[in-house]
Each structure stands twice: as structure tokens, then as C-alpha cells.
């Protein structure tokens, strides 16, 4: 199962290496990882999407991450009310004549054409990964020349529904 794990870390040299090294050593598969600064100076946020087999492995990965001295907080936010976004850049083959046709496809996705050249168009899309996957599928017939994705970044919504109270990090099986 894919889980979204949000990490608050000290912005120190080597911290990314500590996190990815740990996941590699404990045999956890990283689907995506994104890092960036937060509202607090010296503190960064990492969003990991990891593939884990079961709850026991999930608990183990959060506990191991928590042991890192530079990691301040670990939460599995998969089942919470969250906002999650990824950005993708997609370069499609085609001349500017295709532009209006492609605009028609990407419009419902609220994507934009941000670069046009003689034989290609570049589309920018922001959204949840499944939405990005859907657009990529639609664009495939035009001939995709290049894709670059940022990986998911996410945090909790301002309001959490009471009924869906789930533990962020449990030491109890």
C-alpha cells in the first residue's frame, strides 16, 4: 500500500541522505520524495510517498524515522483530511497548430501551456498524482517528448473531521 508520510526535519546538511539512506537500509521503497523550507527558519518539510506491505512495516518505518536526531516529527497523513499536490511539466510533440486542440483537452484539468516552440508544447499541471496520470494518458496520443514531476507535497487541512480520528504515530500494535 502507498502511504504519505510527512516529516518535519532540521534543515541540516545530510538530512536528506539520512532519511533516504534509512529507507534503503530497511528496504522501504520510495515512490516520491519532496523537500522544501517551511514557515520556520531552519526547519524543512519532507513529504514521502512510500510503498509498504502492511501495518507492522508502516509502524516500523515511522519509528525508525522518528529515531533520527534531525527528524522532529513524523506523521502518516494518508487517511487524514489533507491537501496534496504535485506539479508536472509535460512536453508534447506538435506544432502550434495543435494548440487549440490541446487547450481543449487540458482545460478541464486547469492546466496551462507555458512554452511553445516550433515542434513542441509544454504543459504545466498541478494536482493530485492521479489527476496528473489521467492527463498524461490523454496527451499520450500526441507523442510525449518529456515529463518532469516534482513528487507529492502535502499537509493537513485546516479542519479535521472529528469522526476520522486516527493516530499519527502509535507504539501499540
Amino acid at each position: 500500500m502507498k502511504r504519505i508520510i510527512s516529516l518535519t526535519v532540521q534543515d541540516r546538511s545530510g538530512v536528506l541522505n539520512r532519511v533516504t539512506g534509512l529507507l534503503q537500509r530497511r528496504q522501504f521503497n520510495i515512490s516520491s520524495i519532496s523537500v522544501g523550507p517551511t514557515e520556520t527558519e531552519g526547519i524543512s518539510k519532507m513529504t514521502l510517498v512510500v510503498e509498504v506491505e502492511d501495518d507492522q512495516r508502516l509502524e516500523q518505518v515511522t519509528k525508525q524515522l522518528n529515531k533520527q536526531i534531525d527528524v522532529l516529527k513524523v506523521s502518516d497523513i494518508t487517511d487524514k483530511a489533507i491537501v496534496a499536490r504535485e506539479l508536472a511539466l509535460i512536453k508534447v510533440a506538435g506544432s502550434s497548430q495543435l494548440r487549440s486542440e490541446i487547450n481543449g483537452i487540458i482545460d478541464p484539468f486547469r492546466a496551462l501551456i507555458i512554452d511553445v516552440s516550433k515542434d513542441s508544447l509544454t504543459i504545466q499541471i498541478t494536482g493530485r498524482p492521479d489527476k496528473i496520470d489521467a492527463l498524461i494518458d490523454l496527451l499520450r496520443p500526441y507523442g510525449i517528448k518529456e515529463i518532469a514531476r516534482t513528487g507529492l507535497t502535502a499537509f493537513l487541512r485546516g479542519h479535521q473531521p472529528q469522526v476520522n480520528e486516527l493516530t499519527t504515530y502509535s507504539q501499540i500494535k
Partner: protein
Amino acid sequence: MKVEAKLDFQTSTAPKTGADLLIDLLINEGVDTLFGYPGGAVLPIYDAIYRARGNIKHVLFRHEQGSIHAAEGYARITGKPGVVIATSGPGATNLVTGITDAMMDSLPLVIFTGQVARGVIGTDAFQEADVMAITTPITKHNYQVQDISDLPRIVKEAFHIASTGRPGPVLIDIPKDISAGELSQIPEEGAIHLPGYQPTTKPNPLQIKKLTDAITKSRKPVILSGAGVLHGKASKELTAFAEKHKIPVVTTLLGLGTFPANNPLSLGMGGMHGTYTANMAIYESDLLINIGARFDDRLTGNLKHFAPNAKVAHIDIDPAEIGKNVPTNIPIVSDSKEALVELINQTAESPDTEGWLETLNKNKEEFPLWYKHDPNGMSPQWLIEAIHKVTNGNAVVTTDVGQHQMWAAQYYNFEKPHRWVTSGGLGTMGFGFPAAIGAQMASPGNTVVAIVGDAGFQMTLQELSVIYEQNLPVKIIIVNNGALGMVRQWQELLHGNRISESILHSQPDFVKLAESYHIRGLKIESQEELITKLPEVFAYDGPVLMDCRVLQQEKVFPMIAPGKGIHEMIGVKPS
């Protein structure tokens, strides 16, 4: 940053370089001994050591691996961090085995490695290695000093991290221009700032109550005692707790000595070469109380058959160990002593364990550890028993890994904690002898015996120079079977008797070798010889090497074969 001269250092002169500051910081931390080896990138530090001589002792080893294993021995005995210094590049990479060993066995170490100057890091400079990347997965934490003003904080944090929570090695990589850099002002005294490191040491009262209730309801409870009891200095509390409720105790390999072997409730060591009684007790138990052990595979055997009927309670200061290998019903994240004191203070009815203890005692009588006496040679097990006798069971015993280690664990019945120094998790050959040096330095009044194999000893024997120079009365017992005994045993039992590269066809003359290092050496070939020589050797106030020729074919039994369950021991009785 604001810099104030407010440190009250013990040296008379004001610090002049980063290295001088470092040595002052170490003295301030109460460090009395440095285990090290100099080299280019640590020349400024060695210059500072020279200037600070008299205030701090440095012991020069002959290989970096020797220095770090000695620091591990020191840490195991004192509970204080062992402090290691090595140079950049090969100096640092030679420490890797020891760092990993300390990480696996949770030993507190603070390791200083030299690094090339900041300006040339990343240019493949002479003796440059990416020590931070190499040691990240094998340290509890590591630092590279980028600014001299950070040094006081980093040193303070390193000692704090190494010695609190679940102990472990912390490495500080110091570029040469930092240690050589002149201090214009003394940096502020370091303050610990570790928001991401707050170990839980007090148990959750709810879980303590749950465990207490489970104890009352149990009929076949067993305690599994691991090295966490050593780190928590909780042996007395463990004994009080076990005796209060009449619960039998199994110890892990590293937990030997946490519970007195002669206590009627002691079942001995569990695991691959543990006692039949200990393993069957775990197998049949209805409540398993793990205190400070990590359910290592050499203890559990095949997890499918491990304690199948037991409710599992696990007390550990490291939450990541709970539920890692064995599903746990009652998790208690805590220091072992804090948890045991709480458990003892609970008013609770004790379980009726009389029938259970009777069954276990029957097992003890029917399936004791056994070996055959051979009239033609010396049994290694007998050798360990003889050492136990001559040292009154009071010596500090260190070992490598392998057959001799298991025989020492089985036959040196430890009554007290902090007497047993062995490489458990990593299983490092060459550990025992240098570890004995550190152990002897940590406890000058104690008898220290390095029980080592003939193969492992040859990996770190160059440290014989150190025991001569330091005049340390370490007794080295080579359990010499002319083979990589455990490898040979597995080849015999599990690889169709194909003895592949595990016999050492030529050996040095260990007696002459010892003599060449100015140390007394003796070769012992029979039991009679040993009986005559042993008292004299242990009465002698100086180092002695004994090359004890034992039966080559002897195997360690009983045994849980790899992949088998804890109830499937072989060799439980003489065939």
C-alpha cells in the same frame, strides 16, 4: 555570533587552537582516556594532546580497529562513552567495523576523526574519505564541524546522545583547518539543543497496570533479560522483581550477568546455543516479559515458532524495537530500571508458578549442558570451567565470536553484571583481545581474561604491544583448535561435511610471538598441564598468553539449526 570568555577550563593556559579547545572540552566532559592513533589530519589534535599531557591519558594502539574495540570494552564496563581518535581516510575507514559493532550492541562511543581541510573537501584530496556518508547508517548520529564556534555545542550533544536513551556511537568529523585554526576568542560554552531527541525513560502507568494484571493471571510467565538491564543498571531490581513473583529468568547472550546464574530462578541463556530449559520455557510460556532485549534472530530462531502461546510484554527504551520482530501485546517504552521499580511497587497478587517451576526444574535436571571428557585431549568446555574456577567466577571475560564465545557464555556462569564483554550483534572476530585492553583499563583491580579463538586473535594480535607498554595484566586464553571452529561446525552439520577453507594449516608459534612482544607465553596441551599452570598464571601480576590446544572436532551443543524453531534443538543430550 556573540563570543564570551566564560569557560572555566582545567588547563592552566588559555586555548590556542581548535584542537586545544577540543581537548579542554573532553576534560570538561570527564574523559580520562583517549583510545587513538595519529595521522596527518589529526596532527593538530595530537599537538594539543602533547600540550595537555598529564591532564588526559592517550593510549596508542597499533591499528585503529584495536583502539575502537578497546573503547567498546571500556564503555561496556564503565557505562561511560569510550573516546576514540583516528585520522582521516584510512584511519576513519579502519574504524568502521568497531563503529558498527558498537551500534549493534548499543555501546556509547564518541569518535573523533580527522578530515581534510574544508577548502579541499570533495576534491579527492590525499587521505580524504566521505566519512559522514560512510558512517551515517552505522552511528546513532554524526557531525562534521563546519565552524569552530559550534565545537562546544557539538561535543556536548555528542556525549549526551551517545550515553542517553539507547546508547550508541556518535562520530565527530573535524576538518584539519578547524583543529589547526587559531582561536581569537573562546566560544561560548555549548548548550544542548536537540528538539528531535527526547528519549522516553518513564513507563506509561497504564501499560504497567496491564502488565501487572497479566502477571497475576499468568501460569507460565518467563522473563527475558537483555543488555537493556545493563544499560539501566537494573540488575538488583530485576532480581527483586523476579523473586517477588517467582518468575523464572532467561538471559540473552548480551544479558548474561544481569541475573545471577546461580539463582534458582535462572534458566540460563536462551537462543541458538542456549539451554534446552530456557528455550522450552519461552516456547511453552503464556506470558513473556522481555526487558531490554531486541528479539534478535539468534535468540528467537524461526519466528513462527517463537513463544506461540505467550502474551508478549516488551520493555525497551527504543520504541522502534517494540513490535519490530515479534508482535507485542503490552508495549512499555521506558528505561529498564524505571519500569522495574514501578512494577515492584505495584500491589498485585503473584501468579501461582509452582507447577511451572517444577516442570522447568525437571528440564534442568534432565537436560543440563553436557560435553564429553576425552582422555586424549582438552575439551574446550572443560577449559572454560577451569578458568571459572580459578577466577572464582569473578573475572571480566571478553571474547570474539564463534565456538569459544558460546562455550564461554555457556560455562562461565556469570553472577554479576558488567563482567561479560562480547561482540553480540555484529559477531566481530578480533574483538575480544583489544576489548580486554579497554576493560582492564576501565577496571584496574579486576582480573580480565580474553578468551579468544586462534583465528580471531590473529586479526588484532598486534595490540600485544599495548598490554606490554601499559603493563596491563590481561590474561589471554587462546582456545586453539586450529580452525575457524564455528564455520567448520556448520560445514560439518549443514554443508555435507565439506570443510571448505576453515582449517588453519599453519599457525605462528604463539608462545614465541608473545615473547617477541615481551610477554610471557605458555603452551598448554593437556588438562594436567592446565591444572598446574593456571593458578600461577592468574596469580602473576602481568600479562600472560596461554595457547591452549583443545580438541578440534568439538562442537557447540545444544543447537537450534538455522530456520528451525526454538523448540527444535538438536544435541540436547549426549548421543
